[in-house]
């Protein structure tokens, strides 16, 4: 199933979005469990997830991945800010999530250049998440 992430022909790539290129919703579904697991066991950030409703969090992470994959989403900077502003998050917490994201994408065989594009989108919400 992770073949979904495989590189397609270059002509196709130029006409389709990053989201479609890496496999659309099926790719998000494959990535979300893996990503959430990594986040849950990462000692730097796991405490933030101890008391949350796991299903609800799973849904949010799916929305987050859809956004960073460049897919259709309704995420706004305001949502990001609202959701995280009471958590006193630091640079280290953001880095931890970003590292888990990269590790997930590598494990699923996403191409280096696409990982770079995804990380760029993730970085665009950093100020909102850290409430800067």
């Amino acid at each position, binding site marked *: 199933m992770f073949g979904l992430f495989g590189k397609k022909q270059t002509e196709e790539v130029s006409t389709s979005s990053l989201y479609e290129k890496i496999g659309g919703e099926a790719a998000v579904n494959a990535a979300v469990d893996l990503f959430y*697991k990594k986040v849950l066991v990462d000692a730097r950030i796991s405490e933030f997830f101890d008391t949350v409703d*796991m299903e609800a969090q*799973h849904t949010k992470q799916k929305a987050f991945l859809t956004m960073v994959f460049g897919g259709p989403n309704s995420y706004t900077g305001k949502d990001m800010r609202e959701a995280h502003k009471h958590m006193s998050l630091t640079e280290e917490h953001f880095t931890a999530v970003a590292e888990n994201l990269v590790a997930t994408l590598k494990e699923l065989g996403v191409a280096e250049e696409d990982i770079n594009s995804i990380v760029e989108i993730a970085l665009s919400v950093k100020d909102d998440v850290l409430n800067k």
Partner: protein
Amino acid sequence: MLSFFFKPWLHFLDQQGQNQKVRLRPNESVLSALLRSGHTIPFSCKAGLCQSCKVQCVQPSKLPAGSQRGLKNAHAQQGFFLACLCFPKRSLDIKLPDANDDIGVAKVVGKEFLNEKVIRLRLSTDIEFNPGQFCNLFKSTNVVRSYSIANTPADDYLEFHIKYIENGKFSAWVANDLRIGDELNIQGAYGNCIYTETNKNKPLLLCGISTGLAPLAGIVKHALETQHTGTMDLVIGARKAKDFYLTGELFSLADKHKNLKLHWLCSEEHPKNIYFNHADLYQYVSEHFADLSEYSVFLCGAPTFVTKLKKQCFLSNASMGAIHSDAFTSAK
């Protein structure tokens, strides 16, 4: 911020047909506001689980997000919402529940203690349910408790396992006052912790503590009745061997169906009975079920138990959509 200064109103007709209004305080739920102002509506868990505080809104589009969590689509579309989950930012016109809305009558057809603490209550009623769901049982309008159904529609009664708590408003009443032939009000059935497997070879892992066994027993019986052929591991945790119940019935079920395996785990003693083990449930599950990627998992019991084991099962590769759970909250 405007909403900080503007306190919304609740407008409604009370049970006597009189127009009433209540001013909501900041961050106050509809349920809290109704109770504070002396209006009686059924409620129990105050956590959006039992659905006993369901009320209707005349303008569903004005309902704040999240106040219809867990309701059936048909009910949500009609503007029903849970008063305990609804924190309005603007004024709402609501309809208090009709006393008879959604509530049926059940007759007691069986009552016995299964061990020192657990009462088996059997009720005759015509409500429809899926095994694993729960009902609200009424002692009175104000004393309502949610209990899981422990059997399947193949029987002509509903079975509930009620943990006896000394001086418990509901359980002590069941133990001391309720007689065969008595009638009580019942509402339901609700809940999503149900067996809907179309792949009959899928392995099932079912874990419960205390009366969390009730919905699991219903699910196991239902799976067997619908010819489930995959393995079913039922893991039951308790402090001591004397806390186990339904042992005879489950042993004979496991005897008849070789794909059902029982794991009785005592956390606080080495049981004399060779069928029981001394083990920590979390550790036992992680050792015996290290890879749950193929499994459907059912978890029932106290919220802390469900939360902890859900996370553990997810980390053992169970997919989130394949973990079904029912966390029992105590009445507040």
